[in-house]
């Protein structure tokens, strides 16, 4: 059974169709990079995977559980799927430690000591142990994003979704976040990642999905995608972002 199955998904904002007939899947341990021009629906698609965005057509299954089905316990499903956002979305009124423990305590029912212990271990892993007592506003963007990854990992997710995790960061902070993500890949985490970091895709992705105007135009193994992408649109896109 694939970890994530996306079958013929269609989504509309009123009359406007944002996703058209999207189909793909992510196997356990696979790393999928989703790229495409802005407005191509890649962020929308990844938000559909954990039900943050509703969709009107098709099916998405996470470990066999249908995301869109009314009977599905969405909070429970989401607690197993880690998500990292473009703008970090740490909770600004909580300390870093509280950010790392709130989900564990309120959702997973862990006790405070256990949650703090786990949170601090993960903080150590992303190299920010010394900042545990601080508030998100006191950290740099790259540091905040690393905390956000640790926050998602604290829930022991079965897979991780990344929605443009580095596109709101200053250039010199991008690598510290990508390093953490590469480390995760090495540990075998299943990942679906919307990003324009083609270096990252080249290094760790198994497959690359290219989207344009709400459609999956290209869904190819990394070697094929960077070698000879079939669609003209993907070729144009690649030549533009790899130019410099």
């Amino acid at each position, binding site marked *: 059974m694939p970890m994530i199955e996306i079958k013929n998904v269609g989504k509309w904002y009123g009359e406007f169709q944002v996703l058209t007939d999207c189909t793909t899947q992510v196997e356990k341990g696979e790393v999928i990079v989703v790229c495409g021009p802005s407005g191509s629906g890649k962020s929308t698609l990844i938000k559909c995977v954990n039900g943050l965005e509703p969709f009107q057509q098709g099916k998405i299954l996470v470990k066999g559980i249908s995301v869109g089905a009314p009977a599905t316990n969405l909070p429970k499903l989401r607690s197993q799927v880690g998500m990292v956002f473009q703008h970090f979305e740490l909770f600004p*009124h909580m300390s870093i430690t509280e950010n790392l423990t709130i989900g564990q305590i309120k959702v997973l029912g862990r006790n405070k000591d256990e949650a703090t212990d786990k949170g601090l271990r993960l903080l150590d892993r992303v190299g920010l142990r010394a900042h545990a007592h601080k508030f998100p506003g006191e950290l740099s963007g790259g540091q905040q994003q690393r905390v956000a990854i640790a926050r998602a990992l604290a829930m022991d997710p079965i897979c991780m979704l990344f929605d443009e995790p580095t596109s709101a960061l200053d250039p010199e902070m991008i690598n510290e976040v990508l390093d953490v993500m590469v480390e995760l890949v090495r540990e075998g985490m299943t990942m679906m990642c919307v990003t324009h970091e083609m270096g990252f895709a080249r290094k760790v992705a198994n497959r690359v999905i290219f989207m344009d105007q709400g459609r999956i135009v290209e869904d190819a193994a990394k070697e094929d995608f960077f070698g000879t992408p079939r669609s003209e649109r993907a070729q144009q896109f690649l030549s533009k972002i790899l130019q410099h």
Partner: protein
Amino acid sequence: MLNLDFAFLTPEVLSSYVLKGFLFSLQLTVLAMLGGVALGTLLALMRLSSKPWLIMPAAAYVNTMRSIPLVMVILWFFLLIPLATGRPLGAETSAMITFTLFEAAYYSEIMRAGIQSIPKGQVAAGYALGMTYGQTMREVVLPQAFRNMLPVLLTQTIILFQDTSLVYAIGAYDLLKGFEIAGKNFNRPVETYLVAAVVYFVICFSLSMLVKQLQRRIAIIR
């Protein structure tokens, strides 16, 4: 020339006439604030939901309350409740319920703005961790909304304190009433009303200075 004489307003007179009224005004303000913020937050959440059957009654309630003069609400509630329940409620209790219900409409608009000031991504982050709607509101959105709106909520409470003087309409014993009775008994109404005005001014002005201080200290979280 005005021939004013404040000599009769001794500490004994103040404590026997005014203190009781002051404590009631204070109690009314605090209770109506706590109850009003709680009910107002609920109304705000209803209006911000996606369900028409929650939005419509909350909107109707808020718009109605905000379109009627407070003094009429105070009067009508005081007169209508005995008719409906068959027994009088007492001016003080009636005032507390009325003020809570009335102020909730104003606090709900403040809380609505506060909740809307929190970026949607915060809600998404709460959901993504597996929190329910209730948990996301309680743990993530409302604490930030309260913090952002604290100066406005307190300013509304200062207005509420001034408005408590309207309970004169149903004869409740508040701060103003205390002065009024003292003035009648000593036949010095002008002096007592003057002092009453000064007392209201000092309380409200110093409170708004405090709110300004607070405002400077709390940076709005975005």
